[in-house]
């Protein structure tokens, strides 16, 4: 008893003595676990930094500092503006004059001159013109407008531009900020949700307040339609043939190797191909989502073929054997039994391929979808495919390259919208897999 209790104190209830080698192996295992945790933590840290910086830089794009002004355009002013070459500037002139008058009536404390009004209010002519063209009956009546302020005033309220960094220039003078502060206090300049950013189209470099990502979302949508309706049938047909029917010989081996290689080809190569084949040879229009979709189809096909073949392979051979055993033809076995079981995997692969295609800019560079493409919303299916349009990543890229800081902010905002779409697609893929996947 005394022996046992003594040795028990020594061994802590176990007869096993941990020798030096075991201790070393245990220590190695513990170290490895810490390495793994460190790796995961590093990854998570990068992800957090990325997400925080995207959200922090991008959120301001969803609000805009707007001026709320009541404005009356007389029928004579309307006729005069419509008679000019630079109509939108005439509208802007009338509006700014009316705003200046209102400021004088209010007795604002900060001194200002007519030019200050021009510097505070952004480009408004296009909004005003399209409003009065559609509502000619409102001529001569007071209408309340919410119009964007200029990019620098917008930046001042959002903290992008600091007062101490402002030097007087033709874009902004320090005294303008006093006026802007006073207007903000009086509630004339307010922060509003920026619907233009969600629904609008691209705008010229001097008009960041009028820029929106909506038109390019439509462009991306039509491209994804093309990709889906071409790459899914072609990809599935190719993989079913290769997996179930094709003889195993050198030619099919060669095809398989090439498909795997195509999946690793840089996407710009598909853009060059698209330019040569679809635009220069087939004379399809430039900057059209149809061509963009065709190029992205080429890029997505290998991804879809590889994932489809993997999910066909994962259907157990016993299912094929059983179908063939009860007298089904090979085609019946494939279409009635194998394909339905492989469908969740195929759809997941397709959605992930689409998500990849949605984020591609490089193939679109050469077919004219990257640049200043500010078209109205398409008025039908054909114009949706054929009329020039941009795509979300192309729009983001274009904004990021502009000199005005307001566009940089919009580029980050565009990234948020693109990420929302990508996230939604990935969630659909996960749900499909959860819902329909079978394990054997």
């Amino acid at each position, binding site marked *: 008893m005394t022996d046992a209790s003594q040795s028990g104190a020594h061994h802590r209830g176990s007869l096993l003595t941990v020798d030096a080698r075991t201790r070393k192996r245990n220590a190695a295992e513990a170290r490895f676990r810490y390495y793994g945790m460190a790796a995961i933590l590093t990854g998570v840290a990068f992800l957090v930094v990325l997400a925080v910086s995207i959200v922090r830089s991008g959120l301001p794009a969803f609000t805009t500092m707007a001026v709320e002004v009541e404005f009356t355009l007389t029928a004579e002013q309307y006729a005069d503006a419509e008679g000019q070459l630079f109509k939108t500037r005439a509208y802007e002139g009338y509006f700014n004059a009316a705003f200046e008058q209102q400021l004088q009536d209010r007795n604002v404390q900060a001194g200002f001159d007519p030019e200050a009004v021009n510097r505070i209010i952004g480009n408004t002519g*296009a909004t005003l013109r399209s409003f009065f063209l559609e509502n000619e009956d409102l001529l001569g009546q007071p209408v309340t407008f919410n119009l964007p302020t200029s990019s620098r005033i917008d930046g001042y309220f959002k903290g992008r531009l*600091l007062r101490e960094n402002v*030097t007087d220039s033709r874009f902004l003078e320090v005294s303008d900020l006093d006026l802007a502060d006073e207007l903000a206090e009086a509630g004339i300049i307010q922060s509003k949700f920026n619907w233009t950013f969600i629904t609008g189209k691209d705008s010229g470099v*001097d008009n960041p307040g009028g820029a929106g990502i909506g038109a390019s979302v439509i462009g991306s949508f039509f491209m994804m339609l093309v990709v889906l309706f071409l790459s899914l049938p072609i990809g599935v047909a190719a993989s079913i043939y290769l997996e179930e029917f094709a003889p195993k010989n050198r030619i099919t081996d060669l095809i398989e190797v090439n498909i795997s290689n195509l999946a690793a080809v840089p996407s710009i190569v598909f853009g060059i191909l698209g330019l040569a084949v679809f635009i220069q040879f087939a*004379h399809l229009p*430039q900057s059209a989502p149809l061509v963009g979709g065709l190029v992205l189809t080429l890029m997505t096909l290998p991804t879809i073929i590889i994932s489809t073949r993997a999910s066909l392979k994962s259907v157990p051979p016993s299912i094929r054997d059983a179908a063939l055993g009860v007298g089904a033809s090979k085609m019946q076995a494939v279409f009635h039994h194998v394909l339905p079981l492989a469908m969740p995997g195929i759809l997941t692969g397709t959605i992930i391929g689409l998500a990849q295609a949605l984020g591609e800019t490089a193939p679109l560079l050469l077919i004219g979808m*990257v640049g200043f*493409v500010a078209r109205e919303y398409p008025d039908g299916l054909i114009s949706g495919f054929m009329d020039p349009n941009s795509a979300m990543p192309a729009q983001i890229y274009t904004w990021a390259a502009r000199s005005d*800081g307001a566009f940089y902010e919009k580029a980050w905002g565009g990234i948020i919208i693109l990420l929302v779409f990508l996230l939604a697609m990935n969630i659909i893929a996960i749900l499909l897999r959860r819902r329909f996947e079978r394990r054997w």
Partner: protein
Amino acid sequence: MSKLTFTTSAVAILALSAGAAVARDNVQIAGSSTVLPYASIVAEVFGDNTDFPTPVVESGGSSSGLARFCEGVGTNTIDIANASRAIREREIAVCAENGVTDIIEVRIGYDGIVFASQINGPEFTAFSQSDIFLALADKVVVDGAIVDNRPATWADVNPDLPAVAIAAFIPGTKHGTREVFEEKVLLQGCEDTGQMAAMMEAGMSEDDAEGACMAVRTDGASVDIDGDYTETLARIDSNPNGLGVFGLSFYENNTDKLKVATMGGVAPSTATIASGEYPVSRPLFFYVKKAHIGVIPGLKEYAQFFMDDQIAGAGGPLANYGLVPDPALAETQAAIANETVMGGGM
């Protein structure tokens, strides 16, 4: 049955695309990234003020724009090439080979090229072309022998400049800005320092000496930027000693981040560029394919709209963004109205 549907739909798609290829209704433009901001301003206003659809303006650099312009005539080629330099003889020859013979040249105005550094960076406030040449040239003549030029700091070049490492970010060779930089800064500096004459004395022909003057050192002190000015800005942001080459309008949009240097004692501004006092400026152009006028709706109207006094003149949106208006605007307007092509023909 399904084969039949597939064939008919394929035929339908082809017919549709053939129809669309003929019926392009928008002006298609590509070229210089320096002209792009101005072109995008005009394109937006043109779409807002006329019944024509907004033109599509692509970027990519003067050379690639002109190369696409010269690919041929037809709706699958671009109608207008933007360029930050004049079209070259060689490019006109390529154009002619491909059937693009009638080109209307439109000079839209002038743009200044400025040297700017980080706002908190060292005191780079005064340069001459000679300083830039001596800092960035690949080879110089010392005592009659041609040697590699490798000064490490700006003070090595000119004792008045701060003693910080030379790190210049200059436009890459596909940009039209590079050509202006080479001719108006490097070549000028080469002549001012007497290096050009020294090179010719050392046995170089005039052409070779010019080439040597414009060659930039390749040891990393000077970095070619192939992207846009935003890339140059990002490099300057991360390198306090960096000196970047920008367009005047880009600098004016980023005065809170950048500090501009004078050239030969003159500060860049639209006024000093218009008067010619600031030496490093260049005209900007766009080139119109005459064969497309009447085929592409709105092409001539776009060119006329662009060059109208209210747009390209003083007080217009382009001048407000930083373009220096062309004093000879009226001549350009007349040339567009008469569709006067390059080389004197009509």
